[in-house]
């Protein structure tokens, strides 16, 4: 299901609260047990915090959750882990969460680790209609286990168009950028979800999004890689108020928008020496 009816009008895209932004999604087939949800953010930075709470309150279970991290015990995705609504995480790093650790060690929670760049690219690929691509990341590691690998000349070697499969090549080589030998790559597939929850700074009423600083992270790609996308924002402006050259995510990718008051928790408040005064 690719944004089925997403662009067709269902009245305004603007909803009053995170919980209202979830309304009707069961009937639309978006919300259901065993669904896949993408959740933006890096650590607790740029997470759709109120939408996560609203998703928890829908009580859907068996979620496969695509998110770089898994929140902390009492915030972000940690809230959905606590209620055991998540069955599987697809993430690159999940360090900060005792609840996670407990469920994982008991075998109650499945985890698929992806290298961070591979995860980002898989999401971008899903949104861009690319079913699979090759990357050198993870070649020769456990990440490549069970996946197809093959060798190519690397982009940049042997000039334009020379990035063809290295026929008959079976070895593995180092990474000297100019040696002109083929290199081993792993095939990775695109990711696509039923629902994406993203956090942006500003939206207009059409759903054009602008992100702020490093809170951008995984949010733009996730907005493109789900059948239904809800954006949590700090400000909603009228259509036309965002410079078209400065839209990060065009409104076509966003189905619903909700303005919330973000807590924006900080995990590692680090200040300059002597700057605390």
């Amino acid at each position, binding site marked *: 299901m690719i944004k089925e009816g997403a662009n067709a009008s269902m009245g305004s895209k603007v909803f009053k609260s995170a919980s209202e932004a979830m309304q009707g999604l069961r009937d639309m087939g978006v919300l259901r047990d065993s669904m896949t949800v993408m959740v933006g953010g890096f650590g607790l930075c740029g997470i759709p915090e109120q939408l996560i709470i609203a998703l928890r309150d829908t009580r859907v279970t068996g979620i496969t959750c695509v998110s770089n991290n898994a929140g902390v015990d009492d915030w972000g995705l940690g809230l959905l882990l606590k209620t055991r609504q998540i069955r599987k995480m697809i993430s690159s790093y999940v360090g900060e969460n005792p609840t996670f650790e407990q469920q994982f060690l008991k075998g109650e929670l499945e985890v698929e*680790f992806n290298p961070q760049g591979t995860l980002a690219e898989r999401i971008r690929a899903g949104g861009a209609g690319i079913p699979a691509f090759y990357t050198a990341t993870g070649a020769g590691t456990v990440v490549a286990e069970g996946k197809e690998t093959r060798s190519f000349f690397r982009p940049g070697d042997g000039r334009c168009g020379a990035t063809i499969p290295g026929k008959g090549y079976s070895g593995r080589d180092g990474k000297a950028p100019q040696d002109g030998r083929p290199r081993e790559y792993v095939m990775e597939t695109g990711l696509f979800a039923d629902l994406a929850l993203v956090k942006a700074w500003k939206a207009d009423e059409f759903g054009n999004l602008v992100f702020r600083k490093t809170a951008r992270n995984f949010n733009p790609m996730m907005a493109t890689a789900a059948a239904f996308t809800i954006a949590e924002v700090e400000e909603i402006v009228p259509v036309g108020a965002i410079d078209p050259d400065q839209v990060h995510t065009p409104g076509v990718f966003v189905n619903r928008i909700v303005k919330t008051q973000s807590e924006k928790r900080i995990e*590692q408040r680090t200040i300059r020496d002597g700057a605390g005064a």
Partner: protein
Amino acid sequence: MALTRDQIPVRAARELRDGFVVNLGIGMPTLVANHVPAEMDVWLQSENGLLGIGPFPTEQEVDADLINAGKQTVTARPGASYFSSADSFGMIRGGHIDLCILGAMQISQEGDLANWMIPGKMVKGMGGAMDLVAGVKRVVVTMEHTAKGKPKLVKTCDLPLTGKACVDMVITELCVLEMDREKKRFVLKELAPGVTADEVKAQTQAEIIVPAKVATIEV
């Protein structure tokens, strides 16, 4: 005398060049930023979507929307840019970062790196490490030469790999080793003051190349 923990990043900083775009790993590698020569313009990339990391913020400057890959609050220097994780790893995977410096648990004699799974501990994930070692033009490892008396430079890694044949240089308290891509072995380039090649070899399981003459690390 072996280098101190503070001297390793100083030596690593000598791998920087004016105009370089660099990604620094969490921990000891982060400290390299404190030793960029004043006349040198080095751009620090953070894989969560920032090119141009500035100093840590003052209390007033702290911004929850501006963190580094270690999730610490940071600032952005003039000329910085923000981008998505997909664009950030496009930059990394595409070979546009000149240098990354990171830590290691094990390094094989062919330059395989293991640094993401701590034996006996819960697996937390590889984060961006696999992408960095696969994509960055030059990979420098800073680490202690041994762990609990056991060599970290080994013939073959028994820990799960982060990347195959990806390490270009290793800087420890004892020495600097540089990978020879033809010979597929590290070459002993520099020794800490007073440390001998034999001492290095005694603490190294990996087969390494020891030239007749080895420079001394300037401290």
